[in-house]
């Protein structure tokens, strides 16, 4: 039996047992006796509120006194799940499935047991990188994901520092990040279906006190995984700060607004032209999505367009609030929500103004936003990679004659007729100078021919609009290296690896421009991923 089949069968069997058990077993409270029952309830509450250290102290004592009490074991299993001890979490959680439990409902018990079971299966063979102080832990599947993990460890430290500045606190740690090799794996360890993931482009989660991102190699062209870590880390900290009381719209607003904070500077929302156009247009027709509709998750909105609009709404709202009240305002709102205040009211109280005023200011800010020049650009769509085949982005070229020339250029390139290929790419570029795929191909040919400046001329004008197009960044980095601009070469190549760390080209460029101490890793990546040897 193949592993997925085995896993499915095991899960099915487990659910069947649960169904039988839940149906057959008499509901009898099985809580520990006396004061321990109240203590257990408090521990469970602490777990739900992510006060994990508190819960751990209590549960350690309870477990010693009532080692086989099903309620105690369940809470201990939950604690272990939050701590990342999946094998023992699964043992605890599954042991309580068919026993009478007083504290938790059957749905929650089955769901957590399933998550522990699947997570143990999925992450069983993972490797681990840990920061020197043990505060950051990155777990990943053996293989090329180590190149993501290496950078992720450094990014986590910067994220942690940046968020401490804006939200005035650190997560109590350790901060655990798991890099899941496929979207299917993400689906298995979470409550999201693969259809949800495909439809809304949700490829990362923060849940059960850990960050989970899908490896960029699971997507056809990578994705901004570094900012995604920043995004999920905001969720992690905010959940702790508010004891997980922040509603989804507030969580996403903070996260989208602060996700790039780790890069330094003043935080600002980064909207792609498609999302900005959508926001401005829908605001103009008064067709925005009510914040309440974002529950339970933006990932569960019916379409990618709705999800993009929701993110744009909540992040620009938080940005507008931040512009007026600064980070102190954000901290104040989180503190109010922590003690149970409604999020809208918390924003209003922190601003000392009615929420409708805040909403009005926000709408004014949207009204002041320009509609981007290329307003027809679609919402960026994350395309999952299906199978092992290398995705071909030549089909993304909109102009037919340019697409045709790119195809021809690619065929000639494969035959190592680089000069002829560059002629075809040049023709495509003449037709579609603003197309990032075409410009990247032309630049690649120019770099190959040693003409770095031609590559820069083709790519640099597109950078502001296509700052997340990895081939563009990779080729631009190589071109800067060619003309001797090492600083820009490093900057653009680093940006490329933060989208698709499995392209050897930017690693090779970084290996050439970074100081020796930092270049060793890049040299290794360049060689391991099959990059140029020079």
């Amino acid at each position, binding site marked *: 039996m193949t592993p997925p089949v085995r896993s499915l069968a095991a899960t099915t069997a487990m659910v069947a047992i649960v169904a039988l058990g839940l149906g057959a077993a008499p509901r009898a409270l099985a809580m520990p006796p006396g004061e321990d029952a109240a203590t257990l309830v408090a521990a469970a509450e602490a777990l739900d509120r992510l006060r994990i250290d508190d819960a751990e102290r209590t549960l350690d004592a309870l477990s010693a006194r009532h080692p086989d009490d099903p309620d105690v074991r369940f809470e201990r299993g939950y604690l272990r799940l939050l701590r990342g001890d999946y094998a023992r979490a699964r043992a605890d959680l599954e042991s309580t499935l068919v026993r009478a439990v007083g504290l938790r409902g059957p749905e929650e018990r089955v769901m957590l047991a399933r998550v522990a079971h699947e997570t143990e299966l999925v992450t069983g063979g993972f490797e681990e990188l840990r920061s020197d102080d043990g505060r950051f832990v990155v777990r990943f599947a053996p293989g090329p994901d180590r190149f993501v993990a290496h950078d992720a460890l450094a990014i986590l430290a910067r994220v942690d520092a940046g968020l401490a500045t804006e939200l005035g606190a650190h997560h109590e740690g350790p901060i655990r990040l798991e890099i899941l090799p496929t979207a299917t794996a993400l689906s298995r360890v979470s409550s999201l279906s693969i259809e949800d993931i495909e439809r809304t482009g949700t490829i990362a989660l923060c849940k059960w006190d850990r960050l989970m991102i899908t490896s960029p190699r699971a997507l056809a062209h990578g994705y901004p995984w570094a900012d995604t870590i920043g995004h999920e880390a905001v969720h992690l900290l905010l959940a702790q700060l508010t004891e997980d009381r922040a509603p989804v719209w507030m969580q996403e607003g903070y996260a989208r607004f602060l996700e790039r904070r780790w890069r330094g500077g003043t935080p600002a929302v980064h909207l792609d032209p498609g999302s900005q156009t959508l926001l401005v247009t829908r605001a103009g027709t008064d067709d925005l999505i009510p914040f309440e509709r974002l529950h339970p998750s933006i990932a569960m909105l019916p379409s990618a367009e709705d999800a993009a609009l929701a993110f744009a709404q909540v992040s620009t709202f938080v940005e507008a609030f931040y512009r007026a009240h600064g980070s102190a305002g954000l901290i104040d709102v989180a503190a109010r929500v922590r003690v149970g205040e409604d999020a809208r009211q918390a924003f209003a109280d922190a601003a000392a103004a009615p929420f409708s005023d805040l909403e009005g200011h926000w709408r004014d800010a949207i009204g002041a936003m320009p509609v981007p020049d290329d307003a027809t650009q679609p919402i960026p769509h994350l395309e999952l990679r299906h199978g092992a*085949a290398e995705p071909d982005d030549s089909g993304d070229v909109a102009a037919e004659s340019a697409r*045709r020339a790119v195809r021809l250029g690619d065929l*000639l390139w494969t035959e190592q007729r680089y000069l*002829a290929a560059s002629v075809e790419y040049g023709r495509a570029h003449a037709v579609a100078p603003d197309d990032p795929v075409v410009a990247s191909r032309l630049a690649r040919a120019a770099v190959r021919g040693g003409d770095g400046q031609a590559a820069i001329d083709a790519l640099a004008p597109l950078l502001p609009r296509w700052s997340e197009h990895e081939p563009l960044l990779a080729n631009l980095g190589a071109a800067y290296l060619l003309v001797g601009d090492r600083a820009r070469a490093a900057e653009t190549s680093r940006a490329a690896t933060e989208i698709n760390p499995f392209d050897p080209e930017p690693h090779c460029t970084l290996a050439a421009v970074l100081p020796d101490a930092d270049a060793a890793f890049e040299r290794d990546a360049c060689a391991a991923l099959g990059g140029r040897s020079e």
Partner: protein
Amino acid sequence: MLAALGALALGSVAAGWLLGPLPHAALLGVGWTLVSGALVVAIWQPIADLVALRGVGAAALLDASDPALAAATRSAWELARARPTGASGALIAAHERRVRERLAALRPAAVVRVPRDLGRAARPAALALVVALGIAATSGRARAGIFALTHPLAASRIDAPTASVVESFDARVVYPAYLGRSPLRVPAASRMDVPVGSTLELRIVPRITARRVEILVGERRLAATRTGDTFGTSFLVREDERIGVTVTDASGRTVRDSERRAVHAIPDAVPTVRLTSPDADESIDADAVLLLAYSAEDDVGVVDVDLVITPPDGQERRRRLSTSTPAVDSVFGDTTLEARELGAEPGDRIAIRVEARDANDVDGPGVGRSETRTLTLASESTRRQDGIEDLVNARAAALGALADRLEVAVPEDPSAAMARFAVGSAQLTALIGALGRMSFDARVGETARTDAPIYAGMVTRLRRGLSAERRALEPRVQALEPRTAADRALATELENDVLTLTDMLARARVQDAAAIARELEQLRREIASLLRELARAPSDEARAALLTAIGRAEQRLAELRARLGAMGTSAPEEFANVTEAETRQTQAALDAMREGLLAGDLDAAQRALTALEQQIDGIARALGQGESAFSEAHFGDRDRALAEAMDALQGLEAEERELAASSADARNEAARAALASLGDRGAGRAAELGEQAASALAAIEAMEPGRLGQADREEHERTRQRLEDVADALASGDLGEASRMAEEAETDADALSRDLALDAMMFPGHEGATADSARRASDAARRAHELRSSIERAIPELRQHLSDPSRRALQSAAPRQTAAADAAGRLADRFEHGPDGEPLVPDVADDLRDIGELMREARSAREHEEPAETADAEGEAARRLSELRRRLEQDSQRRRSDSGSAGGASELGHPVEIPEGHEGPMELRRRLLDAMSEGAPQGYDDAVRRYYEGLLR
């Protein structure tokens, strides 16, 4: 000093001789004292001489050659050591510097000279040295003594006292008989290289008085037999061994001989075998006769040579190629191998190699093997692969030609322009040739006929472009502008061709892999059926058949993996998603099935079969999706046009059949009326038709009923009987009866023809037997039809016997026939000009225009109220439309499936589908035959038989 060295050497040898192999400890001390004394004497004088040269003494070396310099050197040395009071330091330093300069200028040879009396002193020393060496070489006792001197503690070792106690150690090698070599004596042997299986006879003479001698061979101890002073023993050499000798003297003291000896066993080399023909893996046709040439050589001799054939079931078969008694050094030979002998089916891979055995009867025989060659029986699969290679090569040629044009601009210089043209035209000529061949192959082949016009179009356009370019250069090189335009036109054409060929290549690969997947599925069904058969009636034959089927499935799977691997990025992404993991799991299922089978665990085999089905379904789904998506993306327009044309053809056929049926009714009615009025007058005309009836009868009798199924045989017999009735009626002059019988014969022949045509589409039969029967039945049906028409034409004045309604019906349907003829013309145009301007299918347009002509004849006959002519023309038009449609459907089916025997026909543009629960014809037949063999309730045998036969048809 030299004399002292000579004395030392001589003294040592003498001491050794005196001491002997086992000296007493005291004697050993005396010996060492003597040698040490000689050593001291030998080195005393040289040391003393060297000591004298210390410090300023070295100046004495200059006394002979330059006494003044010697004195100056001494004074410089002394002044440097102890400067006299008041002496000038600068002067002393200058003196020393001068001395140093003069010393530096001296040649060493001028200072250190060979003493004049060296020759006199050397002669006795050399003599002593020679004598010492001579004694050591000739006297074993002296050598033994020297060993004892130099190893003073060896003889007293408690565990293994060692001394040089063997005077001589001779060996005699007796070779194994199969080598046919004479024994060899090896005197004073210390290391011997002998073939494995040799006997080593040893003769040992101890240096001391020995009571017993033992030979240590590895861990074995062999006691030697005494003959006089000599001890002897022997042993068989099987492997490398160290040989030791122990000697026990009269006092019972056992000493091991100090010399190290060893024997190295040389294994017998296996024969060297070569398969010189075929010299590489080959693809062979099913009726091929393969020439095998081989050679085998061996030092011992080759006894026999076998051809080893490994068919798909993995069970090796051997054929003896040669036997030599006695063995011969080398064998060269050739033989033939018929593909039929291999018992393989198209697509199977057979491994062959040649093995030779040598005459080694000791540890052999040694078996040498040639390289293994893989023979692949040509199949649709290999032909598809050939087609793919053609496409790859054509695209590479087109890309090369295009790249050259893009990389080198059209030069202004006329001679450079001519040179560029020469290169470019050669490339294009080669490309045109390749495309022309591909067009021809596609046109005459059974598959991909629709590709022929695409290649032909490329050829035409490239030729045209090349001619235009030539005109711009010859006879006179024109201006740059027209030449550039001609170049650009050709480059554009090449670009189009490259893209088209790329799409065709990807599609061919997709279809190829999908076809292999279908084969896999067919094999799975065969395996399932065989497994059931094995479970019901276990037998070695059934097991062997099952293993063969599994072997074939493994080969198809290997092919599939290779093809998928070769696709790279040229195939659509969806297609490449049939990952290595999926095919690996399929292989695992086959492995599990084989293991279960070999272990006799049919349940395990059945479970593996279920897993296999799931894996194959997964592969088929992925391939089907890829094929569908790809065809839609790249060939959508063309395929859609073809599908629409096929729809139109079907509509036209239906219309013509309806018209033909109505005119046939009119004709039949008129004929019956005419017959009723004819009476006996038809006798004369009937005789003329006798020959035609005989011809129709001969056609039906040309079929072989033995090749037909039961129901078809009955139909055939009925047809034959009716035609005989026709002949009899004609012979008796009864045109009426002849007409009725001819009508029945025509009906039966039509039914037989139709049934066989259907069968042939699904089961072509062995060597196309069913297809052949279908063709013959079709011919017989045509003749029966012509016979009936002739009979009816022979009945005069048919037109006059038409009823009014029939007359009106004939007339009124004439416009419909006109419309049908026009539609045929339009349809011909659609087939002739596809969306890309190329024909959808070659030749179809001409056929349709011919059919249109028949329709116009029918219209004319209708207008003239000629029922027989109308019915004939319309019947023929309908028949030809039907034939054309079937041909196109078969083309389409072949294009999308591997062969005519593949599963259900899939329509153009539809994905590969292997429906759930679907049983292929083979499987169904096998199941039904199984059921038939189980018998039927008494009294229902015939009914059950007919029921089953009906299902099988």
